[in-house]
């Protein structure tokens, strides 16, 4: 059955349209003067940032983290490289020399690059990492003048990631 929608009956003032226009004009001019008086809703972006307003679970740029002793958590298993849907991650593994403090672990990344133009912030790398080495931290303002600049190398990734102390067992409640 067809549904018949009744057209609303308009009063003369509504049909004339002008009163409504005047009402609208009054409304906008009020906002104009309010803003002129300095009451705007804007945030001055590059100076003021969202940082403290971001939710705890915010997924920003993927980064590498070190533990409290400064050890690279990543063991170059390349699982994240494999899982990454847009293939943003490129890892060059390297063996840890026997003389190193962390020689017990065999591998570490020699180079670890995430192409931030490709990354879709899906967080799969974080999910798949067995060593809790890669995390999506809160950085969201990722800009650059060239494509090369948008490739985060290992140094940059550690710089953004910082230190994440303790054993983070992501599958239990503590995560």
């Amino acid at each position, binding site marked *: 059955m067809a549904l018949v929608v009744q057209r609303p009956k308009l009063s003369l003032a509504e049909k004339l349209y002008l009163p409504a226009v005047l009402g*609208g*004009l009054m409304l*906008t001019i009020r*906002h*104009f003067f309010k*803003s002129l008086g300095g009451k705007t809703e*804007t945030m001055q972006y590059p100076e003021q940032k969202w940082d403290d307003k971001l939710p705890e679970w915010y997924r920003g740029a993927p980064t590498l983290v070190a533990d409290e002793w400064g050890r690279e958590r990543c063991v170059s298993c390349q699982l994240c490289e494999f899982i990454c849907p847009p293939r943003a991650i490129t890892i060059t593994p390297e063996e840890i020399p026997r003389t190193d403090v962390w020689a017990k672990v065999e591998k570490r990344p020699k180079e670890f690059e995430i192409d931030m133009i490709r990354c879709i912030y899906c967080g799969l790398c974080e999910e798949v990492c067995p060593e809790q080495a890669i995390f999506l931290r809160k950085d969201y303002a990722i800009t650059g003048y060239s494509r090369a600049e948008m490739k985060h190398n290992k140094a940059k990734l550690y710089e953004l990631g910082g230190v994440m102390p303790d054993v983070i067992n992501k599958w239990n409640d503590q995560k």
Partner: protein
Amino acid sequence: MDSLNFLQQPIVFLVWTSILKTLFVLFGAILPLVSLSVFAERKVSAFIQDRLGPNRVGAPASLLGFKKDPHLWGFGQMVADPIKLLLKENFIPNSVNKFYYYIAPKLTMIPPLLVLAVIPFGSSFLTGPDGKPVQMVIANIDVGVLYVFAVSSLGVYGIVLAGWASNSKYPFLGGIRSSSQMISYELALGLSVVPVFLICGTINLSQIVDWQIKNGWLIFPISVVGGVHFEWWRLALIPLMGISFIIFLVSMFAETNRTPFDLPEAEQELVGGYHTEYSSMGFALFFLGEYAAMIAGSGVIVTLFFGGWSLPWIPDGTSTWLFGLENHVWSWVPGAFWGFVNINVFFAKVCAFIFFFIWVRWTVPRFRYDQLMRLGWIYFFEIALANIFLVAAVLVYLKP
């Protein structure tokens, strides 16, 4: 100074004052006003939407070795915008009709500038060799308003040509829309000013202003020349002139393609309308044309309904009266000073209208095309026509 005497010869005098006036209107008034109104558009729209708008571009003082760049509330944007447009790549699609594609933007820009030639923008500054004051209007022609309509409607050629020459569907539709809109509203526009001619008995814009100085503005008919006086029969004219003014104003919005009548450039339906295929300076010329048309339109409205450059109690450049009284006590103030004030009064009024145009743009949503046509043909046309008869009746039966 003797060598400058030839400047006082009537013909030479006419020529150099005309050139001076033209240059002033073009470079002293219109181009700065266009820049300013583009900036105002951005700023006012921002304020209406509780934003800040452009507020960063200031003076590049750090290039000169200063510590900080003063931001000047974003006024640098007025300079930055044109520079940006000039430096952008001018991309010309391969399939366009080159000749018409090139001249279309110029054709939209020139008519509003030509309209400005007949609008009196001030009283007078100088006294000519024949002892008559030089009128602050580039061409004081008797067919003033007719000329305005004739020339301003030429602007549509640029838009139609741009749409056609682009060789692309959406611009073409934009051009078609523009032409039909222009035809529909030109009628209402023409009819709505007929009452003005009936009342003033002239279509020379300068004389219309003079009439308004003596008899009060058409929209607010209280005269202050020779003491405040008011004629009762003109009370009947106030609502009629109000109708006339509203129709003229709304039609002006349609003529200048401003929202809510900017259907030729409706980006939701037409991608971008007639200027879709234009980039950098071509696009900028359309922009310039639109804003110049807005300024010219405001100038016409101000001249026809708001007493042009006159302000009650402010004398004109010949300075024979002040505060409504024939008075020579004030004659020590040079006439040129009042001439200067008059020019500023005119542009202040124009600016007020530009603000109104912008204000409406960020308030009223765009019309649907059939609504636009209905408004033009069924309502405005009839109302304007009836209004003429009403005004004529008032003039015949009520005017003593």
